[in-house]
């Protein structure tokens, strides 16, 4: 009889334990959110937008899983804790990758910027060879106007680079490079037409 009573008590205790042990893993949630914030602060949304979105999606999924567990009688949160740890690790990994990507973008921007400067310098040199008479010509005036625009585009890109906005700078540099190359081809065409060596 006594053992029956004890068994009953044990069942009650187990139910109580099982239903009470699944407290929301707030510490892990806070840690993961902090890792995501750090990833954002590292500009993952600028340099690795797809990876950053994946981190956010994973976090949203875990938070939904936690709420789903919260709705159950027995809330074992062990699996969710593991998932939170995995998201934290993913966020940390993305943050580390951002630094590498940023460096890669910076180098690419730097190289292109140097390339453009070479083309711009060549353009400035070539434009002096363009046929000039007493007054110059419409073609030269048009090319000069284009040169001014390319210089402005390069200065804009350099400004973005100097501010450390490397992705923005890279986009601007690519656009400026296209213009500088296009102008270079135009000047060379004009020189060829005028039978001037360059």
């Amino acid at each position, binding site marked *: *009889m006594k053992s*029956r*009573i004890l068994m*009953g008590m044990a*069942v*009650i205790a187990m*139910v109580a334990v099982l239903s009470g042990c699944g407290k929301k893993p707030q510490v892990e949630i806070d840690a993961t959110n902090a890792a995501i914030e750090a990833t954002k602060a590292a500009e993952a949304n600028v340099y690795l937008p797809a990876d950053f*979105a994946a981190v956010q*999606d994973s976090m*949203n*999924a875990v*938070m*939904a*899983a936690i*709420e*789903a567990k*919260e*709705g*159950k*009688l027995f809330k074992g949160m062990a699996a969710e804790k593991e998932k939170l740890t995995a998201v934290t690790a993913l966020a940390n990994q993305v943050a580390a990758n951002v630094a590498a990507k940023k460096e890669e973008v910076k180098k690419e921007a730097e190289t292109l910027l140097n390339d453009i400067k070479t083309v711009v310098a060549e353009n400035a040199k070539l434009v002096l060879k*363009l*046929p*000039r*008479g*007493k*007054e*110059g*010509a*419409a*073609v*030269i*005036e*048009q090319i000069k*106007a*284009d040169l*001014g*625009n*390319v210089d402005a*585009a390069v200065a804009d890109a350099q400004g973005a680079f100097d501010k450390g906005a490397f992705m923005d700078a890279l986009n601007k540099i*690519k*656009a400026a490079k*296209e*213009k500088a190359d*296009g102008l270079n081809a135009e000047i060379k065409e*004009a020189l060829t*037409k*005028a*039978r001037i060596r360059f």
Partner: protein
Amino acid sequence: MGKPWWHILIISAIALLLTLMVLIIFYPVPAPPSEEMKDAREAISLARKNMSETYAPDPYMKAISSYDSAMAEWRRVNEDFIYRRNYSKVYALASLSEKKAIEASAISLNSTSSLQVLLDKELKDLNNLLSLINRIFQAYPLTTDVRNKISTGKMLLMDAQLAYRDGHFLESEKKMTESKTLLESSYEFADSHMRSYFRSYPQWRIWIDSTLAISRQNNDYSIIVDKFSHKFFLYLNGEKITEFTAELGKNWVGDKRRRGDKATPEGMYKVIKMLDGDSTNYYKALMIDYPNEEDTIKFRAAIESGSLSPSARIGDMIEIHGNGGRGVDWTAGCIALKDREMDSIFKYVRVGTPVTIVGSVDNLRRVLNR
């Protein structure tokens, strides 16, 4: 002997407790909206991939805010007693979020697809406009302001093409609109300037016909210079026998009005001197009788009307000379040919050969359709 009453009481209590526990365990708990939230999340993720944030910001942001509200409501409902939880609002918000995300995706895909088609056409149109400007006005003496506008328009068009290639259609559209404004306004200005210039075409036509008639009548050579196409034509008996590219004064559009205006005169002239060797700085030269009587009358009238300053002087020393072939208009108003072309025409031309300089041999329609 029966069991004591308290035994029965304990057993009954335990039985009641166990029944209650079984009831608690097996009584249906309201199902959490996990699947609905998952669907909403996936729809949002897809919308983001479809760039809805850019192309369908309203439904996309509504999807996001509905999802966040659903999560908040879910958390709030979870605080209620387990059997009293009502997830209906969460279901509704999750469903709204999914619906808006799907809508955002659809709008986004539709927008990008139609925008792509539109931009593709616009890019072609703008490139055609730029080619037209380059073809018609490259050597046309436009103002610095118009040249700058064309240049900026061209650069913006390049930006638009780059953005289009990278799939940034809104950015491309913005740049294209700016480019279009500049290129169209430049074209309109240049076009209206040119149309105004071509109002003299009937007069040019009369000069051309007279020159060809004289050539036919005298069985002799005549020269016609077409300023717009930068062509020098040599005729014999009214038939064109050769043509060369001519380089003109920087401000060749319009008639010459005064000395130093860098304009090439228009009118019917004749060769008055043939220069070569030390007598010219330009290899060989054919001096023409500019200013003739008509030019002098026009110049005086301009002074009298005040359209020219009283201190202005009439131009002179207009020649067809060598040192040309530079590919640009560089003279102070003369017509420059290549040296070997000067050699060639020196064989045919003599003092008295008619030289007619016109804005264009062809009318405006033919010029534009070239």
